[in-house]
């Protein structure tokens, strides 16, 4: 799928959430402080590509996904997106600025965004919370069609039935009149997938779609997503904290740490040979079903836990947890705690690899 055209081009995306000021801050006129959830992120996604955002909780993965769908307001940057031709025409007709087939999602006025909702969809982690419990499955799936005025009653019903079959909730008639609580977690996630795909979007953000499911059924859901990709050429932003899952489904990976991408490149090559110390720690932490593991402690070359995005460390934001900084302290002390490393291709790395670490890039 690597040859596909770029359909999403995110540049220097920032999403900062203002923190409430304390009394002291108010009376001393201290500047407002922010949770820098996404703090200058750039990447591209090609048509039919599965692009992964990987990292621990609190690193800004969900916020990145939501900013693309305009579910949270971005603070800065641009998000160029190439919609399908008919959607593009509709946008142009309503006066949205189009350049070379792309629109900047952040510049589209809210009231003109509706045609883009068809193109951009999200699947949430929690199959329990993301479906309206008072709606039947049929209603849940029909709703987006009604909102976008697609088909008449009979056609819509047919589309819903087709979609249920596509996500293997069969026979469809058995599921139409049921409510979400009557389904298992895996079945609910299939409904969420059906809802995301019923409008045939060009880009789907899948936010940890399997992390709340039993290991035994995860692969089936992943396979379903890949089926859609193969049949419809849908592009994915797939969010996960599990590199083993990423390895099965992703073409490329971006590893996020505290609002920044610290390593990016071909999924399998990153997992085989991670370069950034944070990526190495993520790889080392994945449990493997090997009975020898119980006889030794797992070596974790990382300290502590992710700090709050309201207090991002200076310099390389990973440095308080970085073991390699300590090991190479004399060479790195003027850099790591002081200056943010740029995302660059290390000398000995393959084409397409980018790493933000003073230890591995030239300076």
């Amino acid at each position, binding site marked *: 799928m690597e040859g596909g055209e770029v359909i999403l081009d995110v540049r220097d995306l920032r999403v900062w959430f203002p923190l409430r000021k304390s009394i002291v801050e108010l009376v001393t006129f201290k500047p407002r402080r922010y949770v820098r959830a996404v703090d200058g992120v750039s990447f591209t996604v090609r048509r039919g590509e599965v692009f992964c955002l990987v990292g621990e909780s609190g690193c800004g993965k969900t916020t990145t996904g939501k900013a693309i769908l305009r579910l949270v307001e971005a603070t800065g940057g641009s998000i160029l997106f190439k919609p399908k031709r008919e959607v593009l025409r509709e946008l142009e007709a309503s006066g949205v600025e189009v350049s070379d087939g792309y629109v900047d999602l952040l510049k589209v006025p809210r009231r003109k965004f509706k045609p883009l909702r068809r193109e951009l969809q999200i699947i949430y982690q929690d199959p329990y919370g993301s479906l309206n419990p008072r709606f039947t499955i049929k209603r849940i799936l029909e709703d987006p069609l009604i909102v976008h005025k697609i088909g008449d009653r009979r056609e819509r019903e047919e589309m819903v039935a087709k979609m249920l079959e596509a996500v293997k909730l069969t026979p469809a008639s058995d599921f139409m009149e049921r409510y979400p609580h009557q389904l298992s977690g895996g079945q609910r996630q299939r409904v969420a997938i059906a809802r995301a795909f019923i409008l045939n979007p060009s880009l789907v953000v899948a936010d940890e779609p399997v992390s709340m499911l039993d290991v035994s059924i995860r692969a089936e859901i992943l396979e379903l997503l890949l089926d859609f990709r193969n049949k419809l050429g849908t592009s994915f932003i797939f969010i996960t*904290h599990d590199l083993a899952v990423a*390895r099965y489904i992703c073409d490329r990976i971006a590893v996020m740490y505290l609002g920044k991408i610290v390593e990016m490149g071909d999924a399998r090559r990153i997992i085989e040979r991670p370069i950034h110390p944070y990526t190495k720690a993520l790889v*080392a932490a994945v449990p493997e079903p090997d009975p020898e593991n119980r006889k030794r402690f797992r070596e974790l070359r990382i300290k502590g836990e992710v700090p709050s995005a309201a207090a991002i460390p200076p310099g390389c934001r990973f440095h308080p947890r970085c073991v390699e900084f300590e090991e190479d302290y004399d060479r790195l002390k003027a850099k790591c705690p002081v200056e943010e490393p740029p995302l660059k291709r290390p000398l000995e790395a393959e084409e397409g690899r980018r790493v933000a670490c003073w230890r591995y890039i030239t300076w």
Partner: protein
Amino acid sequence: MPEEVLVVENLKTYYFTLKGVVKAVDGVSFKLRRGEVLGIAGESGSGKSTIAWSILGLVPPPGRIVSGRILVDGIEVTALSDAELRRKVRWKKVSMIFQGAMNALTPVYTVGRQIEEVLRIHAGMSGREARRRVYELLESVGLHKSIADRYPHELSGGQKQRVVIAMALALEPDIVIADEPTTALDVVVQAQILNLLKRLQREKGLSIILITHDLGVIAELADTVAVMYAGKIVEYGSSEDIYRNPKHPYTKALLRAIPRLRGPVDKLIYIPGQPPDLRNPPSGCRFHPRCPEAFERCRLREPPLFNLGNGHLSACWLNEGEAS
């Protein structure tokens, strides 16, 4: 002191719901030796938590133990009243890290106070004594003692889980049951917590029952593994047997479903369908509707647990010939 700190014999625990009887645990037997780590694996709804609640006498209504025996350190806990269980068994002999406990810490009290509470109520410690013990406990789980004065919302997920572990260790039990202790945590924190449990197990000679749907996590700790399906143990054996030489088609499928960091990636393997409704489980072998190797007899007759030697048990007709 008996070598076996826990014996579960033919345990049946059912939920008597309005819609029928849920046979959540349906004839389960196992033993736990001193210092042993037993992993209980199986999908959601297979009865793992219900086993744990049965051991502590905490099965929620409308559930109850309908038959079988549970012996903790030789005491038949299934014959004790709730008051006796509280006095003699819970916290002191067996404690439990409940699924989701880290998010169930009381938000209005400091975590130090919450651990103190356990010590005062269950060990009758004075305030001073309890405070000192709180500091010891926090340090033993790798937390600074200043954490005692913090509220749960001020702590990270990993710190909260450490607090919950400290609480479980408060009265120095012989057995700790950890129910999905890392399921809500990120991989790095999960690995840190598993390392901690491993260290505590070695230092204190604890016996641990580790419950999780993830066989990858169980391999980090367990000496012995019981695989559950639909209320029954379908395979039981040493870690080596279960991971290197699995015999039951369900165990094999569970192992193949684990996404791996190494090895081939061309095919994703999963178990089709879903676990049965335990009000009305399938006839014969309960796994037959999902089993890739099922044959005629599987639908008709339930396989017993065949003994394959060295304590390796498997409840599959295909193993009948190897049984000793």
